[in-house]
C-alpha cells in the first residue's frame, strides 16, 4: 500500500485538571489512506472527535496535545504555526460538522459562502468563483443549483444545508475530509442520501475520509475500516467486516449487541383486550405569519385527522421524521397542547373536553416521559422532591410520598440514597430513570414516551428500553412510544403507526410493518435505515 495521507502516532491529548480523566485521548495510533473511509466510533465522551480536532488545530483552549505526532503527508501538524495551518485547512484538509445550521453564516447567501473559501486562499477571480460555486452545488446534488446559490441558509432544508457544507468542503479538492457526525441531526431518509453522496464523492475524488460517528448502522453503511474508541483509547481497529461481524474486544461486542435488532417479533393479537385510550379525528393546526400587510398566513396541519386505539398492556409506536406531527399527537393526548377538534377517550372519559379539576384528576392516569434528560428535571429540586411532588399535589402526605419515591427509585434500579441528591449529579441514563420514576409516581395506566431514549448512548439506550419493557409487563401499563428511530420501535412496539405530514399513513402490528410495508413512505423509511442491508445479509 502507498503511504498514508494521515498518520497519527502515539497521540496524547491532556484534559484540564479536574476533568473525569487525565487524557482525552491516550496514546492512540492510526493511519488513514487515500481513497478509504475510516470510521471512528464511540459513545459520548470517548474522545472520538478529539484526534480530528487536533489535526485541524481546533482544540479548545485548555485542552492540549502533550505527546505523539499527527503526520499529514509527512509533516507534523502539531508543529506547524497558525499561518501554516490556515493554509492547510480547507485546501488540503476539510471538515464538515454535525449541525449545518450553526456552521453556516445565516446572513450570507450560499454562493458567497462558497466563494469565500476561494477568497480566503486568494484563488480565482470573483466571476470564476461564482461559476465554480454553481458547479459544486450541482456536484453535491442540490436540486436547482442556480436558485440554491442565491438562497440564504434558512431557506434550505437540513439535508440541503449539509450538502452546501459538503460543497464548501470540496471546493479546493482537499486530500482529506473529516466528517464529524455529519448525519446525526438529519432524518433517516436524508441521512441515507447524504451517506451515499459522501461515498460517491470520496470514490470520485479519491479522498481520504475520516468519519466520526456514534452509530454502528452508519458504520455498516459507509466504512472501509473502523476504529472503536472507549475512554480515549482505541480498543479495536480493523476492516468494517472484521469489526462488525466478528468483534474481538469486549466493549465492541457489548456495543454491537446493544443495537436494537430490526426484526420485530410477531406479538399475540390484541383482540380481546380492552382498549384504554381511543383517539378519534384528532386535529391540530398551527397558523404562523399573516395578518401584517399582504403576507399569506402559513398553515401547518401538525395533526391531521388522527385515529388511534391503545389497548391495556400494549405498546404502540408512533414513528415519523421530524415535522411529521408525532410529538404534537403525544402533547395533544395529555393536553399540554389544546387540540382543535377530536376526542381522546381515556377509560371512557373524553380528555379533550375536560378542564380544571377534572383534567387534573384525569391526568393522573396518563403520564409522560420526556426526551431531554437534562431539561426535564428541575435543576434546583432534589430528586426525592421531583418524584414526590406529583402524589403530594394529589393530597398524599409528605411522608407517604417520599416513601413511595424511595420504592420507585428502587424499581428503576437507582439507589434509594438518590432522593437527597440534585439532578446534575446523575448521568443521562440515570436522569432518564428518574424521569420514568416520576411518571410512575401517580400510578398511571398510560405512559407516553416522547423520544425517551433518543438522547442516550446506545448501550444506555438498551438498558432503558429493557427497563421500560419490564415495568410495562409488571405494572400492566399501556405505552405510547414516540420515536424517529425505527430500530428502537421494532424492538419495543407491538403495533406501529407511521406518520407523515400530520397523517397516519400506515398502522399495523410491528412485524407486518417491517416485513410487509403497505405504503410507499413506510417502505422508503425502512430502506433508509442505516446498516439494514448488512443485517439482512447476515440473517439470510
Amino acid at each position, binding site marked *: 500500500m502507498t503511504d498514508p495521507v494521515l498518520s497519527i502516532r502515539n497521540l496524547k491529548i491532556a484534559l484540564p485538571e479536574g476533568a473525569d480523566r487525565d487524557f482525552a485521548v491516550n496514546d492512540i495510533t492510526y493511519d488513514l489512506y487515500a481513497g478509504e473511509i475510516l470510521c471512528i466510533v464511540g459513545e459520548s465522551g470517548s474522545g472520538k472527535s478529539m484526534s480530528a480536532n487536533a489535526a485541524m488545530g481546533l482544540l479548545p483552549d485548555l485542552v492540549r496535545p502533550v505527546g505523539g505526532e499527527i503526520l499529514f503527508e509527512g509533516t507534523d501538524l502539531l508543529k506547524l504555526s497558525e499561518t501554516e495551518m490556515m493554509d492547510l485547512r480547507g485546501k488540503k484538509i476539510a471538515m464538515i460538522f454535525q449541525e449545518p445550521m450553526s456552521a453556516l453564516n445565516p446572513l450570507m447567501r450560499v454562493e458567497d459562502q462558497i466563494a469565500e473559501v476561494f477568497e480566503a486562499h486568494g484563488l480565482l477571480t470573483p466571476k470564476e468563483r461564482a461559476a465554480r460555486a454553481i458547479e459544486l452545488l450541482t456536484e453535491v446534488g442540490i436540486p436547482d443549483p442556480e436558485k440554491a446559490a442565491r438562497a440564504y441558509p434558512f431557506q434550505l432544508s437540513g439535508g440541503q444545508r449539509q450538502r452546501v457544507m459538503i460543497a464548501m468542503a470540496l471546493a479546493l479538492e482537499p486530500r482529506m475530509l473529516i466528517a464529524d457526525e455529519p448525519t446525526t441531526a438529519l432524518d433517516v431518509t436524508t441521512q441515507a442520501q447524504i451517506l451515499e453522496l459522501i461515498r460517491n464523492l470520496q470514490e470520485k475524488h479519491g479522498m481520504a475520509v475520516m468519519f466520526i460517528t456514534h452509530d454502528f448502522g452508519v458504520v455498516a453503511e459507509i466504512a472501509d475500516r473502523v476504529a472503536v474508541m472507549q475512554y480515549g483509547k482505541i480498543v479495536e481497529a480493523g476492516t468494517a467486516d472484521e469489526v462488525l461481524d466478528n468483534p474481538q474486544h469486549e466493549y465492541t461486542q457489548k456495543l454491537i449487541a446493544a443495537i436494537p435488532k430490526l426484526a420485530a417479533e410477531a406479538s399475540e393479537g390484541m383482540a380481546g383486550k380492552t382498549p384504554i385510550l381511543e383517539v378519534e379525528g384528532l386535529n391540530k393546526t398551527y397558523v404562523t405569519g399573516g395578518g401584517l400587510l399582504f403576507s399569506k398566513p402559513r398553515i401547518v396541519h401538525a395533526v391531521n385527522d388522527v385515529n388511534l386505539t391503545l389497548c391495556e398492556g400494549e405498546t404502540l409506536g408512533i414513528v415519523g421524521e421530524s415535522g411529521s406531527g408525532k410529538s404534537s399527537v403525544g402533547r395533544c393526548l*395529555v393536553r*399540554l397542547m389544546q387540540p382543535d377538534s377530536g376526542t381522546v377517550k381515556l377509560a371512557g372519559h373524553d380528555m379533550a373536553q375536560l378542564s380544571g379539576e377534572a383534567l*387534573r*384528576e384525569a*391526568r*393522573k392516569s*396518563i*403520564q*409522560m416521559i*420526556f*426526551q*431531554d434528560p437534562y*431539561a*426535564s*428535571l*428541575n*435543576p*434546583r*429540586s432534589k430528586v426525592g422532591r*421531583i418524584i414526590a*411532588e*406529583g402524589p403530594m*399535589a*394529589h393530597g398524599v402526605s409528605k411522608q407517604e410520598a417520599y416513601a413511595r419515591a424511595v420504592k420507585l427509585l428502587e424499581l428503576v434500579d437507582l439507589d434509594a440514597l438518590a432522593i437527597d441528591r440534585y439532578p446534575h449529579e446523575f448521568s443521562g441514563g440515570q436522569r432518564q430513570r428518574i*424521569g420514568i420514576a*416520576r*411518571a410512575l*409516581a*401517580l400510578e398511571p395506566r398510560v405512559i407516553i414516551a416522547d423520544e425517551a431514549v433518543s438522547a442516550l448512548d446506545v448501550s444506555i439506550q438498551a438498558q432503558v428500553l429493557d427497563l421500560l419493557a419490564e415495568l410495562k409487563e409488571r405494572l400492566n401499563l399501556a405505552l405510547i412510544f414516540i420515536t424517529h428511530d425505527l430500530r428502537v420501535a421494532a424492538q419495543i412496539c407491538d403495533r406501529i403507526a407511521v406518520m407523515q405530514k400530520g397523517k397516519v399513513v400506515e398502522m399495523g402490528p410491528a412485524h407486518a410493518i417491517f416485513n410487509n410495508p403497505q405504503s410507499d413512505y413506510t417502505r422508503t423509511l425502512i430502506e433508509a435505515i442505516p446498516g439494514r442491508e448488512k443485517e439482512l445479509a447476515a440473517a439470510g
Partner: protein
Amino acid sequence: MMADFWKRFSRNRGAVIGLAILVFVILVALLAPLIFPQSPWRMVQRPFLAPFAMDQYPLGTDALGRDVISGLAYGAQVSLLVGLVSTVAALLIGIPIGALAGYFGGWVDDALMRFTEFFQTVPSFALAIVLVAIFQPSIESIIAAIAIVSWPPVARLVRGEVLSLRSREYVEAAILSGQTSLTIILRQVLPNTISPIIVLASLMVATAILLESSLSFLGLGDPNLMSWGYMIGAARTVIRQAWWLSFFPGVAILLTVLALNLIGEG
C-alpha cells in the same frame, strides 16, 4: 452550591473589592451610634472648620458647626436602609407581576404589561418627586416612592425568564403531575430565576441610593434624618468657601454605588 458560587465570585477581583467597600460601609452604619454617640445635628465646633485642622473632627464642620464625619456615618444608615428596603419592596411588586404575566400569557400578560409600561413611560425621577411631595417627605414615603418607580424593570426581567422557563420539560412534567399553577410558579419556575434577579437587585440598591440622595438634595428628604444627599444639598451654596462639605458625602455616594455595581457584575 454555595462554595461553588464563592469560587466563581472571588475570581472576579472587582467584585471582591466592591464587597470589601460595602462591608466597610455597612459596619460604619451599624457602629455609627457607638463611634459618634452625639447626634449628628449637634453643633460641636465653630462653623467651616477645615478638614484635618483638628484631630477630633478629621473632616471638619459644616456651616452650622456640625461634625461632617459623624454626619457621613449616620448618612450611611439612611442610604443603606432606603436602598435595601425600597429594593425589597420593588421586588415584592415586580416579581409577582412578572411571574403572572410570563406564566399565564395571553390577556393576563397584555393587561399586566400595559400596566407596567404605564409606569415606565413616566420619567421615574419626576414621578418620585411628585409622590414624595404629595405624601410629605418622610423616610416611609421616600422608600415607597422609590419602590413604586423602580419595580417595572423587575417585572420585565421576571416575565422574560418565566416565559422561557415555562416551556421547559420539567415544568410540563409538573403540569402533568397535577400541581396547581401557584405551586408550579413558586416551586418550579421562580427558584430558577433567582440569579438574574439577584444581579438586578444589587444594581437597584445602587440606583435607590442615588434616587434618595437626589431627593434629599432637592430638600425632599426626611427632615429628621441626616443623609448624604441632604449634606450635599445644604453645602451647595457654600461650595466655594467650603469644598469639603459637598466633596466627602459625594465620595461616599460614589464609593457605595460603585461597590454595589461591582458586586452586581461579579
